[in-house]
């Protein structure tokens, strides 16, 4: 740990948030010789804090935002009054959501960056091309994969764009769910491939290979085998002695001077005492929900509608984590609670296809995703007994003989879907609560129904004795927070430029899921991290030229 920076001395860069984006930016900037302070609202947990206590990590949401302290409100359209609900879920500790993520690490395809050109406009949406292409981002996907350690098989995904390097690590061992999924998919003429995951299949750069404990999703990795920002870029940043990660530091406001430049950020420390850190530049990486909230809270005389919001688009075009889950029961034991969640995926339905009659597509995976308590509550299909001796006779078979498939679906960007500030409700620090306005586009729903049918086909082709799903209508919370500060060339139609610099404020950068123009097929972490590496490279060049 370096000596703490003094609040009154402006650091070169102040980074808000320490997840896939903030951690990577901090690592790149500090390695380039800049002084960096990272403000993270959550605590600084480490491997010793990561147990397999399902009650704590799953049911008491130990690693995510707590709506008792940070309430949210939700409505489907602006005509309604929003009521209290949890909709935006994010990792709230050093390392952010990468601490508890499943570790799926999908690059976007080339088509993801130019779907508006490929498909055409979609009425009622802000469906647009990105201002960058896959080839602009490719070197940074590679850099991220090598920095953190990603396991996969180059060339196995027939739809992937060109890659400059293979994965640094071979794929993880296939699980029974992967074998069955591959069998079913191949019978249907599809091309399944080993899932790319940010988990170590071998020892890598001083970290140990995965021990297959089965506690990836919603848990932290006690072995540091999960390539979270915490286990990788945060520690690399700290080793430079030029980066201080200040946990329990909840930013309430970014300040600007009379020239319209940012001067630093006000934040609450662990004792809820207000502090201020001066900085020459600020990089907001607070996630697709908290980033727009912070910019909106940072309004001033000069920026009456929120910082960097001359376009009026801060918070708008929120895209949601849409997914469909199908499960199947098989003859022999899978024991799929062991090891990582996902070992095989299929991208054959990834691209949109006019013949389907709607815009949309998805990547389909196979997984189990349940721990013992979760399975006891939810694991037996709803048409069978849910308690009593019959349930007890079934629950074990369903625990050991079941697998699921999750499809990761497109979410169209609509201006009416947004994050803003609730006019009434405050959080425990007295700051305006986040208000979420969201409803799905009809094509999103048609796409989910389509994907559900494809998933059922795969599990049936794999030989499942029973296949069940809960339909496409279970719209609950979102863990992939995208849109809300979209990137683009036109300052009237976007919040940041193609290097993530705010159009309105020369020394303010915004990089995280909020930068996304379209949703891809979810699994945004690899792209968030690649964008952060690319943005940091630009910040370094600009700062060296004196242009920040």
């Amino acid at each position, binding site marked *: 740990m370096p000596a703490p920076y003094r609040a009154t001395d402006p650091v070169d860069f102040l980074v808000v948030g320490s997840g896939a984006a903030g951690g990577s930016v901090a690592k790149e900037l500090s390695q380039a010789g800049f002084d960096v302070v990272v403000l993270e609202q959550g605590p600084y947990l480490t491997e*010793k804090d990561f147990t397999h206590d*399902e009650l704590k990590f799953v049911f008491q949401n130990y690693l995510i935002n707590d709506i008792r302290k940070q309430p949210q409100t939700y409505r489907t359209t602006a005509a309604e009054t929003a009521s209290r609900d949890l909709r935006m879920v994010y990792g709230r500790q050093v390392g952010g959501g990468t601490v508890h993520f499943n570790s799926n690490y999908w690059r976007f395809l080339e088509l993801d960056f130019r779907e508006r050109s490929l498909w055409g406009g979609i009425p009622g949406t802000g469906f647009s091309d990105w201002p960058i292409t896959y080839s602009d981002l490719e070197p940074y996907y590679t850099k991220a994969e090598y920095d953190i350690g990603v396991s996969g098989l180059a060339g196995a995904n027939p739809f992937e764009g060109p890659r400059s390097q293979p994965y640094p690590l071979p794929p993880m061992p296939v699980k029974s769910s992967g074998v*069955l999924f591959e069998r079913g998919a191949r019978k249907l003429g599809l091309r399944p491939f080993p899932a790319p995951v940010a988990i170590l299949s071998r020892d890598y750069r001083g970290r140990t290979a995965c021990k297959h404990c089965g506690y990836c999703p919603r848990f932290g990795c006690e072995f540091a085998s999960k390539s979270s920002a915490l286990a990788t870029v945060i520690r690399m940043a700290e080793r430079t002695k030029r980066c201080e990660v200040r946990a329990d530091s909840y930013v309430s406001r970014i300040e600007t001077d009379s020239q319209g430049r940012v001067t630093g950020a006000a934040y609450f420390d662990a004792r809820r005492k207000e502090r201020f850190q001066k900085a020459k530049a600020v990089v907001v990486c607070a996630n697709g929900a908290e980033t727009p909230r912070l910019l909106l809270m940072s309004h001033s005389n000069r920026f009456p509608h929120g910082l960097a919001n001359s376009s009026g688009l801060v918070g708008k075009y929120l895209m949601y984590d849409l997914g469909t889950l199908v499960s199947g029961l098989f003859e022999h034991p899978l024991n799929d609670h062991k090891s990582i969640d996902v070992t095989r995926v299929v991208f054959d339905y990834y691209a949109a296809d006019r013949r389907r009659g709607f815009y949309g597509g998805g990547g389909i995976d196979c997984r189990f995703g349940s721990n013992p308590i979760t399975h006891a509550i939810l694991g037996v299909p709803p048409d069978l007994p849910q*308690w009593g001796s019959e349930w007890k006779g079934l629950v074990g078979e369903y625990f050991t003989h079941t697998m699921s498939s999750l499809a990761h679906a497109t979410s169209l960007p609509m201006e009416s879907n947004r994050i803003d500030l609730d006019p009434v409700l405050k959080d425990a620090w007295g700051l305006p609560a986040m208000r979420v306005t969201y409803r799905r586009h009809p094509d999103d729903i048609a796409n989910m129904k389509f994907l559900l049918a494809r998933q059922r086909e795969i599990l049936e082709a794999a030989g499942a004795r029973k296949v069940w799903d809960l339909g496409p209508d279970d719209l609950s919370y979102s863990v992939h927070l995208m849109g809300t500060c979209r990137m683009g060339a036109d300052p009237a139609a976007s919040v940041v430029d193609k290097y993530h610099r705010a159009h309105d404020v020369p020394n303010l950068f915004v990089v995280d899921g909020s930068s996304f123009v379209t949703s891809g097929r979810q699994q945004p972490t690899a792209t968030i991290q690649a964008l952060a590496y690319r943005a940091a490279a630009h910040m370094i060049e600009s700062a060296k030229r004196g242009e920040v």
Partner: protein
Amino acid sequence: MAALPEVLAAQRHAREAVKTGKQPAFLDKRAAADIEALTSEIVPTTGTPGAKEAGVVHFIDRALATFEQDNQRAYRDGLAALNAKRATMFPGSASIPALTSQQRIALLQSVESTPFFALLRTHTMMGFLADPVYGGNPAGGYRTLGFQPAHMYAPPFGWYDDKANGGEN
């Protein structure tokens, strides 16, 4: 795993609590007896341990006194409503524990779609499988599920990946 010795110690502690018949802290005697009788129908004792052997009532008692305080009222009201229903369904019955198992199942079936039943069921599953530090006792629950609590595995993991991972199937 670094936490293993602590977990083992806590598990021993919970087993002792079940064996010695520790008195509940939040629930009164009648409520505790009702909950034990009801949760023993939700996860009955069969060839393997059920909610009773797992000490689910101790888990719920501790939960309501600590991290589930918000649900104290739901339990008070829920048990009162269930006892009222019992009196209607089984006139002259003295208490929930005094009903036959069949009668208790019928009573629970009549409230299956209520929020209180969902809460009771969730808490039962938690007590059956939660870490001993919460008063849970997962050993029997793990057996029912076929969960092997090794917390570290090596491939092959199941029947279907045996061949892919070097086995015979």
